[in-house]
């Protein structure tokens, strides 16, 4: 992707806290990242690493209470989404930023026909009348590869299969030609052949429509096939960020390396057991004062318990938040 072009989305110091009875949970801790126009950014990390919460914080989709975005700025088209009146933010949601969710079985409203649900953003954001919105909705269904689109507009979600419902979700998210599409594990709830179809569809749509995509997943195989750049999250913070080739060729953060090792290989000798990362992800009950990965890290040393490593450049457009230099096998001098 062209470097140097100004990013369409720029997040700095994002901090999200869930206020619970048992105390605050620091789910997202000073996350910085940016998204270039037309780029596909993959976001990976295990469950609870803060991927979804980060993205939902951006556009105010977290229920508040208990969620609270404490700090940060989200630059989008010259405005800060976090300091925008609710009304203005609503005009961006669904119009300039589209969202596709994980579970297509429950993400569509069961009592309205899919045509109505696709037409809703069209009528609100683009001010289309009923007939025009209907035509556009039909185009969208055709775009995402639903056969017999005109007739299916009147069908209810339960009359579609899981894969078809996810196509409907994508059609809905694309309705107003968004500049950014956030896809939150869009293929996780689907079986593998349908996953492949949706991936091909998304690749194709992105080439045709040219929007930037943030793709949240914990499937590294998907990322390798689709992303331009990857951001790895752990314990509510970004631990490594790199172009996709660099990340798979020379991962710099021990967590990324461990994550890559857990992927079972089809070729070669079969290991007796699947590889896992030993231990549990951290409980985020306070703001991080040390490296969140140190308890599970094979390279952890005393510095890791004293401070939380900042992200340092380790290559072209490649950074990692670690005190250990894996290339030299020694602590990094920062």
């Amino acid at each position, binding site marked *: 992707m062209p470097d140097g072009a100004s990013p369409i989305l720029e997040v700095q110091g994002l901090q999200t806290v869930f206020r619970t009875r048992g105390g605050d949970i620091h789910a997202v801790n000073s996350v910085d990242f940016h998204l270039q126009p037309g780029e596909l950014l993959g976001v990976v990390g295990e469950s609870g690493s803060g991927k979804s919460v980060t993205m939902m914080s951006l556009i105010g989709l977290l229920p508040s209470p208990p969620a609270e975005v404490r700090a940060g700025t989200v630059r989008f088209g010259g405005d800060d989404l976090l300091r925008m009146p609710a009304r203005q933010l*609503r005009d961006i*949601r*669904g119009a300039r930023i589209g969202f596709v969710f994980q579970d297509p079985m*429950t993400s569509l409203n069961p*009592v309205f026909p899919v045509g109505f649900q696709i037409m*809703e*953003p069209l009528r609100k954001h683009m001010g289309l009348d009923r007939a025009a919105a209907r035509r556009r909705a039909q185009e969208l269904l055709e775009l995402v590869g639903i056969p017999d689109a005109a007739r299916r507009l009147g069908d209810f979600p339960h009359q579609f299969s899981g894969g078809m419902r996810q196509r409907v979700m994508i059609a809905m998210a694309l309705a107003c030609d968004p500049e950014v599409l956030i896809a939150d594990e869009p293929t996780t709830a689907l079986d593998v052949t349908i996953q492949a179809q949706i991936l091909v569809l998304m690749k194709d749509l992105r080439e045709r429509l040219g929007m930037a995509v943030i793709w949240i997943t914990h499937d590294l195989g998907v990322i390798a096939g689709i992303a331009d750049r990857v951001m790895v999250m752990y314990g509510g913070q970004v631990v490594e960020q790199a172009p996709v080739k660099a990340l798979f060729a020379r991962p710099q953060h021990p967590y990324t390396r461990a994550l890559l090792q857990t992927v079972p290989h089809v070729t070669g000798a079969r290991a007796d057991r699947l590889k896992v990362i030993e231990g549990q992800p951290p409980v985020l009950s306070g703001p991080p004062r040390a490296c969140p990965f140190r308890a599970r890290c094979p390279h952890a040393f005393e510095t890791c318990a004293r401070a939380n490593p900042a992200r340092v450049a380790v290559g072209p457009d490649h950074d990692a938040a670690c005190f250990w230099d894996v290339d030299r096998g020694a602590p990094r001098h920062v």
Partner: protein
Amino acid sequence: MFTYTIRRLLIAIPTLLVISLIIFLVVTLAPSDPTANLPLSIPSEVRAQMREALGLNEPILVRYLLWLRQFFLYEPLHMLDQAFGLSLAGEDMQRILSWQTRSPVADLIVQRLPQTLWVVGTSYVVGVLIALPIGIVSAYRQYSWFDQIGTFVSMVGFSVPTFFTGVLLIVIFSVHLGWFPSIYDTTLRVTDLSTFWLQIKQMIMPVAVLALYNAAQISRFMRASMLDNLNQDYVRTARAKGMTERVVVLLHVLRNSMIPVVTVIALGVPTVFGGAIITEQVFKVNGIGQLLIIAIQGGDVPTVQTLTFIFAVLIVLFNLIADVLYGLLDPRIRYD
């Protein structure tokens, strides 16, 4: 849907026959005597003759079958005659007569139904109209002061019996303030604005008492149903599409939440026709509920039997209506 409805109606026939038999047995076998309320000066032979004249010496099964014939054949014919001026019913086709008043039970019901429908029906409508917004707001602002007060009032309305709230209102508004009459005047004819105002005034207290009770139940139901739906994924989707909170809550969530609530509301309608036995007694509304309680006290088997059976028919009917409504409101349900 149509065949389903027809099938349900056909199934209702044996159900209702069994219900009518059970009601008949319960009412007939109860140790009551229709002559017990008569003056003590009437000698016992005369009482025995009276019982015989009422057909009490016949076997129970015969009495049941006779009642069935009266209810399903003679009464409809008489009603058609009355409605269209025909003469379908023969001279020997006796109507179901109340033992107490010797007038046809159907006429008693026709006399009393307007009062019940006005008072109890209005209270049901008012109760629903109050309950729905309260339930919606309580759920949307869960644990807010509005919700807390709503919960408290609902608990009070639900748990304090109507004979207490009714008498309380009478003491406050009739006895002390003198704003409203404590007795419902059935002879009042609404002809102009001032009589209309009188009618409103005499309806306010019984309607308020019953509406509080109905609203308490339905608002809790509405709240629970809204809460179930507010956390669904599709709500997040609607917000992600940039819909306003009004559209999210009043269109997406409410449309889903109404499905079980409409069912509950439909199931409650037969109680409107059944009247409110206690509240009608407290405010002296001579409606169906009062008719039933007087008939029970007087051992008036035909009246009790007929009224109870009509309630049973309404309950079966509105169960069916509730199921059909469920199918209409929820596209996932298909009765085929």
